[in-house]
């Protein structure tokens, strides 16, 4: 079997001592920032991106991926123990997880989350490995118009799934695309929107922008709301679920994993959406929906499996089609660019060891997280007692050094300062920043494919509708837009996406 042969290549890469160490480091760091509220995987990956310059590409990507799925584990720990979601993907876990903790079943909830995440991680790793081949083959059939249509679909879905009014999400996407026009036009060599500033000739760098908005501006926001944590510190004793617990959590895990695996692949999907969808599904299917919100174990098992599966399968569109499905994946594009790897179908053919090594490392990382997490719960919870006034200067220091080391110059640091102010404006206007960043990352590729498709069709726009594939993708995007405009779905979406 090809699949096993490929996985064997992957494991031989992932099992190299150095790569094991970086996977471990990524998982540890991911858990750490997952536990700490106010510091997400996005800012952390952005912070470490320039530093990975010194690492070999496979080690760099393995570590950064570990941060992303490690954060899903860490986020659930604080959600359960102190009713504080460390990550947006574990918001839903606070509902039943914290109730379980209050009933003295924190240990059971934690191990449920860990087992569910591990199981989902294993399945998602296999799904990633199985789907990678066919999807890569499909990607090779894509021409400019199909890629254009695919990216439009991804951007539309990402604004459908971001909080706030849909039209404002689309506005942010378009604004992001306009910002991506800054710099040298690749086809003609013209400097656009650079105003003679040489540092802008290569375009606006993604990292200072992400850091300004998700690092610095986020700090200003967090400082405004100075609510104190009330820790329910209790000894976490019994970790083992009972036989009855198992009977209830296993089906929920299976469903959560399936849902997360599917939704993760979707452009615009990922961990957050998967966990919300799974909770809704479990509540619908349960014979005892009244127990939800009062410590139902399904309400922990399902979403925790789903968010981990979703986090991992969101790598699929990136690695096979070269299209990032969410902002963290957009940052992975940046990481690959640093190492001169063009994300897309060619990763698998040109760098099989890297490709399969990354996938295999996810399974290894999940195993590490399972072992790492349960015994260390006490330590993670203690971390929460560090006051934010000591924590945020540390975040500022790491962000600033990270931004500086992109090019070893201070221009990027000033850029981050500007986007800090811009990010604060966005927060105050409640405009979602994620669609902006996706637009920024996909903008150049969309323009290039659009221009190429139009050259091939001699300026005829109908070319996008005559190719069945691109017509289908654009139709899906149109349906998503129409659905979101329907009043009933609109209100339900607003309820579901409220954070």
């Amino acid at each position: 079997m090809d699949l096993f042969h490929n996985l064997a290549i992957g494991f031989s890469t992932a099992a190299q001592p150095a790569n094991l160490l970086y996977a471990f480091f990524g998982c540890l760091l991911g858990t750490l920032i997952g536990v700490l509220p106010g510091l997400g995987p996005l800012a952390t990956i952005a912070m470490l991106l320039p530093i990975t310059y010194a690492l070999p590409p496979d080690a760099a990507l393995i570590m950064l991926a570990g941060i992303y799925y490690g954060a899903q584990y860490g986020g659930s720990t604080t959600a359960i123990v102190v009713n504080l979601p460390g990550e947006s993907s574990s918001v839903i876990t606070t509902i039943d997880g914290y109730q379980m903790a209050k009933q003295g079943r924190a240990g059971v909830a934690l191990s449920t989350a860990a087992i569910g995440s591990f199981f989902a991680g294993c399945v998602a790793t296999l799904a990633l490995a199985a789907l990678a081949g066919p999807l890569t083959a499909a990607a090779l059939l894509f021409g400019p118009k199909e890629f254009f249509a695919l990216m439009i679909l991804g951007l539309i879905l990402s604004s459908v799934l971001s909080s706030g009014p849909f039209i404002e999400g689309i506005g942010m996407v378009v604004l992001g695309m306009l910002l991506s026009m800054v710099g040298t036009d690749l086809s003609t060599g013209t400097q656009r929107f650079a105003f003679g500033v040489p540092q802008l000739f290569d375009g606006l760098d993604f990292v200072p922008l992400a850091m300004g908005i998700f690092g610095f501006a986020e700090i200003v926001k967090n400082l405004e709301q100075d609510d104190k944590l009330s820790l329910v510190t209790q000894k976490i004793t019994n970790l083992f679920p009972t036989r009855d617990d198992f009977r209830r959590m296993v089906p929920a895990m299976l469903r959560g994993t399936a849902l997360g695996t599917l939704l993760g692949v979707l452009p615009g999907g990922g961990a957050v959406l998967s966990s919300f969808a799974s909770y809704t599904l479990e509540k619908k299917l349960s014979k005892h929906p009244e127990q939800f919100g009062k410590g139902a174990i399904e309400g922990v098992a399902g979403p925790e499996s789903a968010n981990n599966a979703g986090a991992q399968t969101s790598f699929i569109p990136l690695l096979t089609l070269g299209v990032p499905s969410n902002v963290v994946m957009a940052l992975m594009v940046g990481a690959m660019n640093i190492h001169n790897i063009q994300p897309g179908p060619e990763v698998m053919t040109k760098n099989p060891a890297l490709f399969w090594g990354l996938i295999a490392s996810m399974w290894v990382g999940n195993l590490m997280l399972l072992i790492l997490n349960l015994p260390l719960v006490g330590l993670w919870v203690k971390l929460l007692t560090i006051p934010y006034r000591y924590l945020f200067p540390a975040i500022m220091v790491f962000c600033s050094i990270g931004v500086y080391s992109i090019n070893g110059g201070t221009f990027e640091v000033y850029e981050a300062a500007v986007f800090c102010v811009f990010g604060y404006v966005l927060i105050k206007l409640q405009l979602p920043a994620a669609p902006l960043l996706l637009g920024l990352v996909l903008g150049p590729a969309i323009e290039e494919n659009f221009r190429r498709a139009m050259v091939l069709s001699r300026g005829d726009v109908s070319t996008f509708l005559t190719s069945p594939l691109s017509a289908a993708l654009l139709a899906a995007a149109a349906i998503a837009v129409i659905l979101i405009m329907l009043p009933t779905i609109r209100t339900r979406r607003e309820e579901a996406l409220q954070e």
Partner: protein
Amino acid sequence: MTGPTIRDQRAFASGALFLAFAVFFFVTALNYPAGTAARMGPGYFPRLLAIVLAAIGLAVLLGAVRRTAERQALHRWDVKGLVWVTGSVILFALLLFPLGLVGSLFVLIVVSSRASSEFTWKGALANAAVLIALCLLVFVYGLGLRLPVWPALLN
């Protein structure tokens, strides 16, 4: 009722922001040749995007003055926190080469700490000492990043 009133201040400001960016990009893009649909110049796509953004901005703006719009005031701004945080980053960039990493980090940490309502000199100084030591250990000696550690005068 005389004339439209801004019911939703948040949406109104958002629409205005979109419109302002759209106008800025459109006007700037006029400097670049547009070409034709079959052979697009560097100005074609940005102009197209700017028009789309202007339309969206207008729609958001009109939605805010609609009679059915929800009343929503703008959030209060914490200008002080924003100034301390942004200012500390700018100071770090300004001082990195003249003062070196140790000095500029010290300024960054102390100035940004002022943004917190629970600021104390003792806490900020202790935090600075710990963080600077950590950075030297991790970034300079551990990862070997090229950073000017000490003031330029000493080199």
